[in-house]
């Protein structure tokens, strides 16, 4: 779909995935060929270095979130971590109760477990969020029952950027002896995270959102918390997750974690100043625009909004044609390759924050990264108004609005 070839790209979709840092890739390289050995073969010379570097990476990942080394379990993705956490906590604690609560804005890798969990005897309910995307504490209190064993509340949502009051929720739950899983895919490696302060029982960490490799992630499991394994086999990852260790990816994860800790403050400052400009620029040049998520409790470098009379996928495609990569919670774009139309529902996150589906037709998320520049922000600001105008000129809804002053 490259019509305007050779155009310099402005990548504002770091929430989706990031390139691997050169230093991270360099760290990984020796473990494909030179030190390719199986870390479980510890009686062989070939296993020695791989075993050791897996251990060192575990330490680095633990440091990033203030955990102990043996509280870190490597998995293959944030999705797997979320599945291990929720199914594992559910199955490991099923004698204490069968009721599980998800926030309304959890990622698909949490909410789409609902059918599986119901199929094996659990009961799922959802907790509301307010218009800024923050968990509704009153609704939480209403929905917690004697039978409740587990709550899943993500640390931050990548579509709207809101950071949840995880610590506050944890305090409430601990008093009732209810477990708390938090999906930190959007926060760990990006903002400071301390699992001890947050007081969570499990937390998902995903390096391909902070310049680490894909195909690897981790789950923090607090010492003493019972988590049943989802994938059984050999005795890797202290029995929580079987399968030969993906050594190069684990090493890359460790290196990405180390660099992220070192540069976190610097990166966040850069992101915050760029996104401030971006937001201000959009606000002043486009009317009928609505920013989503919490105004201050949000991810750095994250700007999300929807625009009246503009459909998300078309906007995303036009931005792309102008060299800008963004993402869209639009009904269409997320699942355009689905086998049928069942994937084409409005974003559950937008619905949850009360965005009216008859006026909003998809949001756009710009998630900036450490290598983005002021020039890139200016480029986006220079193309946005024209695209919006073009799409509105073409829209019968906008035509009707102009004639009647009425929406929807």
């Amino acid at each position, binding site marked *: *779909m490259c019509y305007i070839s050779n155009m310099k790209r402005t990548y504002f979709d770091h929430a989706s995935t990031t390139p691997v840092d050169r230093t991270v890739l360099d760290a990984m390289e020796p473990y494909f060929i030179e030190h390719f050995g199986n870390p479980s073969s510890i009686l062989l010379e070939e296993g020695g270095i791989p075993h050791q570097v897996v251990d060192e990476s575990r330490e680095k990942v633990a440091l990033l979130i203030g955990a102990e080394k043996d509280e870190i379990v490597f998995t293959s993705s944030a999705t797997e971590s979320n599945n291990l956490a929720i199914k594992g906590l559910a199955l490991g604690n099923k004698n204490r109760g069968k009721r599980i609560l998800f926030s309304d804005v959890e990622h698909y890798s949490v909410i789409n477990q609902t059918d599986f969990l119901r199929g094996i005897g659990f009961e799922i309910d959802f907790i509301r969020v307010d218009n800024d995307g923050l968990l509704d504490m009153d609704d939480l209190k209403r929905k917690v029952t004697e039978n409740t064993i587990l709550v899943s509340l993500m640390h931050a949502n990548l579509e709207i950027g809101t950071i949840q009051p995880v610590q506050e929720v944890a305090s409430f739950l601990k008093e009732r002896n209810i477990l708390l899983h938090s999906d930190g895919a959007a926060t760990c490696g990006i903002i400071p995270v301390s699992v001890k302060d947050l007081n969570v029982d499990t937390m998902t960490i995903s390096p391909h959102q902070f310049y680490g490799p894909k195909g690897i992630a981790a789950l923090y499991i607090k010492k003493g918390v019972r988590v049943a394994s989802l994938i059984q086999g050999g005795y890797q990852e202290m029995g929580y997750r079987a399968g030969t260790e993906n050594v190069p990816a684990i090493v890359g994860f460790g290196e990405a974690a180390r660099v992220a800790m070192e540069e976190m403050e610097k990166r966040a400052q850069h992101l915050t100043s760029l996104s401030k400009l971006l937001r201000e620029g959009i606000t002043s040049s486009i009317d009928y625009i609505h920013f989503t998520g919490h105004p201050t409790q949000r991810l750095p470098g994250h700007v999300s909004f929807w625009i009246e009379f503009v*459909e998300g*996928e078309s906007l995303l*495609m036009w931005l792309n044609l102008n060299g800008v990569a963004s993402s869209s919670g639009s*009904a*269409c774009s997320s699942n355009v390759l689905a086998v049928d139309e069942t994937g*084409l529902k409005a974003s559950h996150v937008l619905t949850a924050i009360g965005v009216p589906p008859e006026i909003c037709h998809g949001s756009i998320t710009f998630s900036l990264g450490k290598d983005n520049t002021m020039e890139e922000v200016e480029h986006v600001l220079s193309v946005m108004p024209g695209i919006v105008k073009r799409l509105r000129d*073409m*829209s*019968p809804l906008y035509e009707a609005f102009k004639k009647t002053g009425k929406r929807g």
Partner: protein
Amino acid sequence: MPQGPYSDKVMDHFMNPRNMGEIEDADAVGEVGNPACGDVMKLYLKIEDNKIVDAKFKTFGCGAAIASSSITTELIKGKTVDEALKLSNEAVAEALGGLPPAKRHCSVLAEDALKNAIEDYKKRKGLT
């Protein structure tokens, strides 16, 4: 370069939509879709001697919806009303070089918009 989900034809009509706009003194107007579902198509026809002499559209929707509307105006121009009525959504999708399965409903919407406009025409003419 690799192909995205859309054919070159879809991309061409998305980027350079044909016959986009309004016909002020249209002989028929069709409007289908639902804002809550994310797609609304409005089709304007100018009909002389039972022949479609001009067609324009306005569409709110995704790339496939815009392309489907655009190609539909091209396909029907110069056709008689009865010929136009035979235009199926499959023909629309085919003229676009195919649509991803999840986007087939956009071609259906185009067919519906056309039928809706022709109904409007017949109603105005007292033919129904």
